[in-house]
């Protein structure tokens, strides 16, 4: 089936540094999403993005977070500066515009971010 690729699979950085998580979505998809999952907890929505703009964001999407798709290929999540509580697995997803408000999201395997 369609694949979403996330690079890198693991990243370790020091608190206060900037980190960029990269996502290569399914090629013809138009909607993009980031979710955050702390180990052992449920997956929580951060943000979705369409046509160069943030459509919705949750309260977890702090001011230090930003998203973009600068060259029409990778969809990125940037955290600047990072905090200890940002340690989690971040999942990217993409979807094609669907009808009747029902869309299938395709998820990547996640990037495990560890902030020291």
């Amino acid at each position, binding site marked *: 089936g369609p694949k*979403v690729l996330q690079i890198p699979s693991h990243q370790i950085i020091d608190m206060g540094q900037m980190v960029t998580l990269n996502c290569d979505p399914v090629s013809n998809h138009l909607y993009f999403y980031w979710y955050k999952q702390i180990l052992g907890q449920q*997956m929580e*929505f951060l943000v979705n993005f369409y046509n160069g703009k943030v459509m*919705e964001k949750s309260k977890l999407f702090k001011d230090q977070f930003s998203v973009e798709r600068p060259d029409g290929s990778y969809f990125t999540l940037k955290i600047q500066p990072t905090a200890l509580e940002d340690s989690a697995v971040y999942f990217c997803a993409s979807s094609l*515009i669907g009808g*009747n*408000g029902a*869309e299938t999201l395709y*998820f990547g*395997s996640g990037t495990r971010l560890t902030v020291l």
Partner: protein
Amino acid sequence: SQLAEENPWALSVHEGESVTVNCSYKTSITALQWYRQKSGEGPAQLILIRSNEREKRNGRLRATLDTSSQSSSLSITATRCEDTAVYFCAPQTGFASALTFGSGTKVIVLP
């Protein structure tokens, strides 16, 4: 409070047996999706059932939807060890709206 909740929290079955996971949700929906997340992987969609459907099948999987009681179930027949995963329901409330997940049901299939 969570938009959707799966129950039970966890269960185990032996290979070949059937298993059912239940979901209750708290909003009007356009569709409800079931996802499975295996250890170390991202979620993968199993079934999408629209609000005007009552039942949907996909191989060994069967989902039901009751919009009057705001509940859904996912049944897996002839389970296999590789069905071991966390199963989530995700109600969808509108076009391109954010999909929210519950805490999931951990299903363990024993040999």
